[in-house]
């Protein structure tokens, strides 16, 4: 392993000799939106005289580019914004801050690359960026716009099922997605058992999903990174916006702290279905609501230093009178310090706190039982971006996370469980470089070294992994490119869940002496082609992924009460492969996309299915989504989504027998059967009444398809010798109305 390390380090050293080239001057600065002062991420900054030289702004809107002395014109471009040309006389280092104006007429674009042909010029693979403004017009259940639901319409990303916010990326499990809210990991990203995500769309700026080909600064989960960024708040004026829906309302306040320099935003949301339900005496005992609060503020210390604080707090409450009660929620806090150390070196330091806990209690006349579980993180991240020269941008840094993980413990009147919490330290060092070899060839390469310490004296141990990352883009012509990528990811935290749908009571545990880090290796190949002057964009990717140290459970295990979870685990491996096709229409009155995935994902676990390969439950052969947004008039917009997916792989009984006068089902191979396919059409109309208010009307499941939620097998009431397969469906025709305002 060490030889490999040395070889890779040498590779880095060779490329960094490029840094030692002749003396140059640097242009650096921050790009912001004119009207709100929000920083703009991914703005393309190109030297007009040498169009092959250019950079993009980072997560804080910062850019830096070094050039020999001379006169240059910098072209700033960003989809939806007016292009800016800025002349610069470069005879010393220059600071260049810019505000860009958005062009509202381009805003019907739904999912947009950051510049028109971004898909052709960057090496990034398997990545989609979603802007919340654009997701707002898509129909969703109960009219609550939802970023995670929109992400699930992308190829390679599959919903776990109706009424579930969990998703599977390229054959991975739900817990293999790293969900970050302003860098803080969110351990349970769903409200109300998965009907809503924890992300209040009013407080969100954008979200990026990376399907396995993570840059080296990301790590810790096998399948994907969902990187969600909160808005910073308007630093020019105070604004109030919100929405009134059938089951929930939202309110957001934002404004400047120091005008043009710093700002704050506070956004809250609460459902009130339970308040209506209480009107009916039958439902008065039911508690059923969630709320969340997002807070963010930033403070410009000086021209080179900026502090950000972001916080999230959310809670779900679900209970029935005094007999059953449950509460669960996440709290996260991030304190960040952005610093421009030199015109070429940008630093970001973050202190992050994240907490998830749940509490379920059952009460009866003379007994009480509680289940609790908790995971708490303290996290320090240091990230540097070095704009070495116009061809090389390097990133390096480290991350230390201290986990305190309390597994599900039962308590109550007469219960004794001796489980104690475990501590772990998850560390990573990383280094990566994005190298523009020529105007046709871009290569991003990096290495992440991750190591996990078990901190408890009785189990002390360290697991170390090297994770190489590579992606390349070769431009075939002005409208086409091919891409190749390889990445290794590891995962040190594991979600214990043997429920079919995912539940708030699922518990996280860390590595142990028995549980080893999960490891995935993914190779992908892609081809992109833009058609009709970038109006259409076609991307296809194929991937093959192998996974090691995957976890399953022995028979008859109840994970909530079992004394020692590690004793009931089974281990094995997985593989996943597939083809993803995405065709976007980005211009015109009608915009949208068609996404299709053909895929296979399998597991091979010791002790299951005679140790042979079987379909993972999230294996779905076909997955199609069609999304369209049509501007009917300046005020009316209609949008629709259609989805079709093969049913999950499940195990149906094949036979039956009688034991002690009870009918018992006999099963064949694991997951050899399929749930019926799910398909559905949703539509939504948006009416912009004035500049400050709009109505949206939605209908979920237009043709009332009864999609399968679960299938159970029962003896027929009239003929007990006949077995019926009974399907339960959840949502059939859900209308919604939402009123949105902003002042």
């Amino acid at each position, binding site marked *: 392993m060490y030889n490999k390390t040395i070889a890779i380090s040498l590779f880095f050293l060779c490329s960094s000799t490029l840094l030692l080239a002749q003396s140059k001057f640097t242009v650096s600065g921050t790009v912001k939106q004119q009207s709100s002062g929000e920083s703009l991420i991914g703005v393309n900054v190109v030297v007009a005289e040498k169009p092959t030289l250019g950079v993009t702004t980072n997560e804080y809107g910062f850019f830096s580019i070094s050039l020999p002395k001379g006169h240059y014109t910098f072209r700033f471009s960003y989809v939806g914004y007016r292009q800016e040309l800025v002349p610069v006389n470069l005879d010393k280092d220059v600071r260049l801050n810019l505000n860009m104006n958005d062009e509202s007429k381009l805003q019907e674009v739904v999912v947009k690359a950051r510049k028109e042909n971004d898909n052709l010029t960057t090496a990034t693979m398997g990545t989609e960026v979603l802007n919340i403004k654009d997701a707002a017009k898509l129909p969703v259940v109960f009219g609550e716009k939802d970023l995670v639901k929109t992400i699930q319409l992308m190829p390679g990303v599959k919903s776990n099922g109706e*009424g579930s916010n969990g998703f599977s990326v390229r054959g991975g499990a739900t817990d293999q997605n790293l969900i970050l809210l302003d860098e803080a990991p969110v351990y349970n990203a769903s409200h*109300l*058992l*998965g*009907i809503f995500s924890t992300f209040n769309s009013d407080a969100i700026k954008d979200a990026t999903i990376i399907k396995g080909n993570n840059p080296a600064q990301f790590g810790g989960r096998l399948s994907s990174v969902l990187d969600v960024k909160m808005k910073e708040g308007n630093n020019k004026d105070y604004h109030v916006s919100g929405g009134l829906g059938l089951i929930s309302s939202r309110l957001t306040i934002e404004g400047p702290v120091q005008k043009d320099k710093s700002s704050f935003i506070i956004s809250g949301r609460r459902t009130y*279905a339970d308040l209506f339900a209480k009107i009916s*005496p*039958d*439902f008065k*005992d039911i508690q059923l609501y969630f709320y969340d609060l997002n807070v963010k503020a930033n403070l410009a210390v000086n021209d080179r230093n900026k502090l950000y604080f972001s916080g999230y707090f959310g809670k779900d409450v*679900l209970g029935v*009178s005094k*007999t059953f009660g449950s509460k669960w929620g996440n709290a996260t806090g991030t304190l960040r310090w952005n610093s421009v150390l030199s015109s070429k070196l940008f630093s970001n330091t973050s202190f992050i706190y994240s907490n998830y806990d749940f509490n379920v209690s059952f009460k*009866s006349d003379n*007994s009480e039982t509680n289940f609790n579980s908790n995971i708490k993180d303290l996290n320090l991240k240091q990230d540097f971006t070095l704009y070495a020269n116009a061809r090389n941008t390097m990133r390096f840094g480290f991350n230390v996370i201290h986990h305190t993980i309390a597994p599900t413990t*039962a308590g109550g009147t007469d*219960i*004794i*469980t001796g489980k104690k919490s475990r501590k772990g330290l998850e560390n990573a060092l990383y280094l990566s470089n994005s190298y523009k070899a020529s105007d046709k060839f871009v290569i991003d390469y990096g290495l992440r070294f991750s190591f996990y310490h078990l901190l408890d004296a009785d189990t002390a141990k360290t697991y170390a992994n090297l994770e190489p990352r590579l992606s390349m883009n070769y431009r075939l012509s002005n409208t086409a490119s091919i891409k190749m990528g390889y990445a290794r990811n590891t995962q040190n935290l594991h979600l214990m869940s*043997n*429920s*079919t*749908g*995912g*539940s708030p009571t699922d518990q996280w545990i860390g590595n142990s002496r028995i549980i080893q880090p999960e490891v995935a290796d993914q190779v992908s190949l892609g081809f992109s082609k833009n058609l009709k002057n970038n109006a259409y964009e076609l991307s296809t990717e194929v991937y093959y992924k192998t996974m090691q140290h995957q976890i399953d*459970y022995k*028979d*008859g*295990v109840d994970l909530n*009460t*079992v004394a020692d979870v590690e004793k009931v685990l089974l281990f094995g491996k997985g593989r996943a492969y597939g083809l993803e096709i995405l065709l976007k229409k980005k211009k015109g009155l009608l915009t949208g996309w068609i996404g299709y995935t053909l895929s296979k994902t399998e597991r091979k676990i010791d002790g299951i299915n005679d140790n042979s390969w079987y379909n993972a439950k999230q294996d779905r052969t076909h997955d199609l989504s069609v999304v369209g947004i049509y501007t009917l008039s300046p005020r009316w917009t209609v949008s629709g989504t259609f989805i079709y997916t093969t049913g999950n792989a499940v195990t*149906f*009984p*094949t*036979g*039956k*027998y*009688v*034991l*002690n*006068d009870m009918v*018992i089902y*006999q*099963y*064949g191979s*694991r*997951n*050899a*059967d399929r749930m*019926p396919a799910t398909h559905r059409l949703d539509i939504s109309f948006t009416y912009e009444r004035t500049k400050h208010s709009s109505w949206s009307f939605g209908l979920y499941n237009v043709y009332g398809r009864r999609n399968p*939620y679960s299938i*159970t097998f029962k003896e027929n009431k009239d*003929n007990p*010798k006949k077995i019926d*397969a*009974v399907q*339960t*469906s*959840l949502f059939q025709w*859900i209308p919604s109305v939402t009123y949105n305002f902003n002042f």
Partner: protein
Amino acid sequence: MKNIITAILITLALSGCEKVLDLKYKDNKSSLIIEGNITNESGPYFVKLSRSVKLTSTGDYPAVDGALVIISDDAGNTDTLMAKGNGIYQTNTINGIENRTYTLVVRVDNEVYTAHSTMPAFVPFDSIKVETIKVVGDTQYNLIPVYTDPVYKGNNYRFVLTVNDKLINQHFVQQDDVRNGVVNTSRLEINDDDLELKKGDTISMEMQCVDDSVALYYKTLALIGDSGPGGGTTPNNPRNNISNGALGLFSAHTSVYKGVKILF
């Protein structure tokens, strides 16, 4: 818990609904089913041999005759069972005694199947407590078997529920891994999709003290039945205590019955 969650989800969805599907099933391998019971009550005891059938079959379960069936215990007793026809085999001499381990050997079609089961010590069954709760305007009944778990660990209890003389096809197991040595206050986790108790119902319950492998078998069945969010497990044939691939179960257990009527 699953039932409450599902009920709330469906209430929320307003239009949640059920329908019967016509599914295509994979081929079934017809397997030998062995059912054997030894109890602390006096004999004779019976072993029943049959075969599994396709899920879609509505006919009878084929009986397996012509087998050699022997039960022995760890006190040196051996009993060759008498074939009664229709797949039923009856013991002659062997007795069910607490703390003894019994071995069942079945020889049929040149294959030999073996099973072991240990009869745990008897634990008295005091009564059935009926608990009333009001949920969403409905009155629901919880059944709590009252017994005092011995101080030593590793006790497993299986309950067989009969309501108005109808055997309920649900599986209930209680164990003492988190509540040891106390009077039981846990209710049976009845799946109320299939069984709604009401005022006037006559309840009869058998409490069996069973060994670990029998408890695991029924616990697995109970989890398979509890599908949907918040519960359930990928279904499979529960691990049993019989060798050579036969399905079914051989159980040496104590047995005691109690009854109660739901009065209000």
